[in-house]
């Protein structure tokens, strides 16, 4: 009958109106900034550099291979390689970035740098409250601002970080086994020569 | 002859003059609306409530809007190039003076014919209604038929235009 749809619609809106005082399903507003939604596993905003241990310079995983700089579509990463080397997670001596700048006003959060990094050194952060009144310098993050610890990485992406740690531990174990095998072969060779 | 009457009369006459003298057609219509409002207030001053409110409802609420729509739809809102006054203004003045003379004579005659009517007669809406469906029912019905005919005519004219346009468009 004519008018039936209108009455049904009015019933729905009345349910919405009165329900919004009682159930959260009927009032989905989150009053930012007093209330925040909990961040979820796959959230991503801008990249950051991971360091292991307590000292950010010594534990920085990045070896300045410059793959991410080349692969970045809007070219927002700027890397300057260092002249000397320092030991990395496995113990091998590697270069490190003397300068690592990301321009976050250019970065489009595509995550390509994370996907191509062979050393699990650059990961996606979830921090988005980056407003600043310095339009140019404030949005150019340098190496110190980008370096965040592995514990922080576990906090924001726990499953991903656990996977990364497992992979790195496996690699380290493999490298250790190879080094032990090489050392054993060497001692065996010397012992063989001696005998 | 109180001051209110003079003010309302001045308003009405000013509205009428402005309706004649202004260049922009829509301004003229709005001035005419002011004249209608003045007339309505004069009716109200004479305690003719029904006439006053009907004047506002019909003239200001419907006729003025009708005139404005007619002007807008027939591109009359542009200022005429030849100016507002026509060349045969003398004949117009003579005719207006003649009409004014006849009306003035009739009004003054009525004061002479009915000298003992000092009180304003109180005519309620009920009396008007009773008269309309009692004594004046035939004029009422004729006016209704006239209005219906006018409406049907307008619809037919509009339909003809639509059909004409469609035929032109399909050619």
């Amino acid at each position, binding site marked *: 009958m004519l008018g039936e749809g209108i009455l049904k619609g009015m019933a729905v809106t009345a349910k919405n*109106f009165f329900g919004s005082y009682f159930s959260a399903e009927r009032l989905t507003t989150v009053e930012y900034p007093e209330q925040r939604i909990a961040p979820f596993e796959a959230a991503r905003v801008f990249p950051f550099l991971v360091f292991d241990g307590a000292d950010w310079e010594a534990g920085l995983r990045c070896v300045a291979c410059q793959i991410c700089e080349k692969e970045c579509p809007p070219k927002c990463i700027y890397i300057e390689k260092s002249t000397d080397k320092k030991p990395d997670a496995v113990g091998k001596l590697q270069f490190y970035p003397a300068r690592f700048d990301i321009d976050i006003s250019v970065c489009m959060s595509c995550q390509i740098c994370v996907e191509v990094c062979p050393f699990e050194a650059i990961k996606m952060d979830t921090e988005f409250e980056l407003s600043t009144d310095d339009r140019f310098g404030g949005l150019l993050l340098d190496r110190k601002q980008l370096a965040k610890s592995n514990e922080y990485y576990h906090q924001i992406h726990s499953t991903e970080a656990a996977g990364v740690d497992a992979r790195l531990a496996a690699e380290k174990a493999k490298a250790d086994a190879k080094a032990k095998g090489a050392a054993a072969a060497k001692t065996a060779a010397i012992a063989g020569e001696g005998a | 002859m109180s001051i209110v009457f003079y003010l309302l009369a001045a308003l009405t006459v000013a509205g009428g003059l402005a309706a004649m003298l202004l260049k922009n057609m829509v301004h003229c219509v709005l001035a005419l609306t002011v004249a209608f409002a003045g007339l309505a207030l004069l009716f109200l001053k004479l305690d003719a*409530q029904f006439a006053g409110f009907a004047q506002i409802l019909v003239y200001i609420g419907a006729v003025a*809007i009708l005139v404005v729509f007619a002007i807008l739809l027939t591109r009359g809102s542009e200022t005429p190039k030849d100016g507002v006054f026509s060349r045969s203004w003398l004949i117009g003045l003579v005719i207006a003076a003649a009409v004014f003379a006849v009306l003035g004579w009739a009004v003054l005659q009525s004061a002479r014919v009915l000298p003992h009517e000092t009180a304003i007669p109180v005519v309620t*809406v009920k009396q008007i209604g009773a008269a309309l469906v009692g004594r004046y029912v035939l004029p009422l019905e004729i006016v209704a038929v006239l209005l219906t005919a006018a409406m049907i005519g307008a619809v037919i004219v509009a339909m003809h235009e639509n059909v004409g346009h469609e035929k032109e468009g399909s050619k």
Partner: protein
Amino acid sequence: MIETCDQIFVLLQHWLVSFLPASWQPAAGVLLSVAAIVCVFPALFAVAVLLERKGLARIQNRLGPNRVGPFGLFQPIADAIKSLTKEDIVPQSADAAVHFLAPVLLVITVFMGFAVLPMGRNMVLVDLDAGLLLYFAMGASSELAVFMAGWSSRNKYSLLGAMRAVAQMISYEVPLLLSSVAVVMITGSLSLTKIVEAQNHYTWGLPHWYIFTPWGFAGFLMYAIATTAETNRSPFDLPEGESELVAGYHTEYSGFKFALFFLGEYVAMFSISGLGTTLFLGGWSAPFSFLTWVPSWIWFFSKLMLSIFVFIWMRGTLPRLRQDQLMNFAWKFVLPMCLVNLLAAGLWRFMGDGWLRWVVCSAILIAAYAGMGLAEMRKQRLGPRSYRYAE
């Protein structure tokens, strides 16, 4: 005591006016009442704007404004300050005089309508014999203001919005008047105070409000539809729809003039709801005979606010009607229903008291409604919904 509460404003007016010499007292009394109306209804406007924003928000699963003051209660003050301090931009090619006068005329005609509304026992500003006619005369004049606003802006969209608004208002004025004519027929008078007094009787505790009669209920529905269209409210708000014509006839208005248009629209809503409560809902009379101790003006304003709440509810529920759908609805459905309603009201009057007239009138009205509804809906041919997804 109850009497004092009920007549408190009348007594207050008499007391204040008694300080003046006798020859000035009538004029002073009228001026005081006018001042009261001009203060109360804009204050109600502020409350209504806040209620609308919060109410619509809750219907739409969100909070309304809640930053200014506790629960956003001072939001109208913030809005008022904003509209007063905004720059008043008048387009260069606009007709300055008409552009200025349009909101003024709108506000004047809208406030004039309050002169005949009985807001409580003995609380009507002017007790006219032809009160209803004054109200409709003022309503008709407000259309001219809308047209003036649209035309003076020299903007195609404004003009289009104004023409649509005027066409809509004129087409819905006929059902508005016809549904009130049924009430006038039964009461026998155009005076609003007499209409309220005719409804102020009680049988078995229930009042004789006209909405509780078949023709009154149908009349009230038609009146409600017509008022929603007259005041350009959803679902009839195409002339001022923000997504359609920018803002329709008040596109080129900013600052205080826009606030005046807004005020005019809401105050028109109040006055037309007030008229609706007077005609159909018994005005200032109480719903049950044991509740007559509550002051009459409280009943009037509660019914007014209830109508406003229903307006807001409708706005949150229904989508907007297109212009041709709107006009079709007016001329092809509402107008014939109003004429059938007149017939039913006439039959009611002449059938005398008893259960027969209830049955006959209800039957006629329901048959007409169902018949016309079926005729309209059969033309639509709405099938079940089908979805097509992009591959």
